């Protein structure tokens, strides 16, 4: 039996019916077409599927869609206002913090969550906040640099 749930996604209120066993990841990708959210492992190991639920980073592959009833979700698609990129996104571009890009949406969302709770993180804080997001390409240096630079430019506000 499907459940009717209501939540805010990237600033918009949505009401949909979902199967109780559907993950948040599947709902975002399949029902809402938000394919910026990536599935890496599907088992909570890689962080590629990271989105924010009530401002906290979660592995959307491990959360059931029905759990977001009444909550607020932010995905990579909701970061830019359609014209300007989020300072974090700008900074990732500037620092070439992207190679294949598969980890990028999750990385950016984990960084966003960090900046939400700590507007002036140090290098060690950034590394720790991103430790659950695996990247096979970049070696992480440019990603960490990008986040720190966004902080310096006031991205953390």
């Amino acid at each position, binding site marked *: 039996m499907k459940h009717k749930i209501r939540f805010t996604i990237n600033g918009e209120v949505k009401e949909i019916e979902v199967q109780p066993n559907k993950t948040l990841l599947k709902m975002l990708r399949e029902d809402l077409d938000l394919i910026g959210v990536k599935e890496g*492992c599907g*088992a909570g*190991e*890689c962080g590629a599927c990271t989105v924010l639920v009530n401002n906290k980073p979660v592995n959307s592959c491990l959360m059931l869609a029905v759990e977001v009833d009444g909550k607020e979700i932010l995905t990579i698609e909701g970061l830019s206002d359609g014209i300007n990129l989020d300072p974090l996104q700008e900074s990732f571009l500037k620092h*070439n913090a*992207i*190679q*294949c*890009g598969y980890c990028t949406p999750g990385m950016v969302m984990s960084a966003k969550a960090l900046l939400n709770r700590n507007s002036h993180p140090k290098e060690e804080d*950034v*590394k*720790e906040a*991103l*430790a*659950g*997001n*695996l*990247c*096979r*390409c*970049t*070696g*992480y*240096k*440019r*990603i*960490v640099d990008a986040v720190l630079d966004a902080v310096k430019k006031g991205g953390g506000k």
Partner: protein
Amino acid sequence: MKKNGRGIATIMFGFGYGAGFPDHSIASAEIEDEGKILIRTAAADVGQGVLTTITQIAAEVLKVKPEIIQIIPGDTHLIKNSGSSSATRQTFFTGNAVKEASEGLLSNIYHYASIEFRSNHVELGIKDGYIFRNDNPNNKLSYWELAEKVKESGDSLKAEASFFPRTDKPDPNTGQGEKIYVAYTFVTQVVEVEVDTDTGIVQVLKVYTSADIGKAINPQNVEGQIEGGTVQGIGMALMEEQVIKEGITLNPDLTGYLIPTSMDTPRFATRLVENEDSEGPFGAKGVGEPATIATTPAIANAIYDAIGVRIFDLPITPEKILKALKKRETENKIGKKEDF
């Protein structure tokens, strides 16, 4: 107790398939409508940045802004073979094919423009996608206007090129050959580690890299490749191991097969040596695989420097370090001489 050590390793890497394999890349360049220049290549960009690199190459040769270059992504109906994105070969092979195709297109631009201007190519100038007679630069034709005229005459403004270098099979008796690979990339790395002798945990603190990559067409990309490759080398040295028992992988996931995280990443100091010693495009050589090779032996050497124990079996896990330290301790007690 924490002990620090430094290790060094140097590698040379022959890239491309080499050894007589018919390795080649084909590319074409043509003047496209709407102010674009089209490059056809099947080179697959998996994040290493080859499409950025060849965009830069085409823009440089054709003297236009990179924004004007458009690349048709891989499609077997529309484009010819560019070989695989492997063997550290795309910048060298497809880079050369794109450079030659762009040069072919530039030659054709000169050729047809000299007919239009009733002049010789040495009297023509080119700037930002326009061609003109040097004695009258205001009377100019854009590449696209020229392409229209060429089209009216039943021809088209384009060129195709391939890069198909010779390599030799090594002599089966001596293993020697005159040119086994198209060129070689050289990398030296010095790695600083900290070994915790109580836990056996190794932290890589800093990696100094000097890489002779011929020419860095996009230095930011080259450094990114080196950092990513180095961190893969850290994984190989310290944690990555596929455990197979009777044909079955026992750790088929990222909880059992560990790869480096942001916590494992060291500080980097990278120097690019631009020693144009090959026939690569603008002297460039490949950087992909060479970036990862020196790291592992350099780490093994650094661990030896730190704790005086040599471990030959990868990955050098905390368990192996503790076991080796213990073994040495007992050997020291019974007075056995160490051989290192």
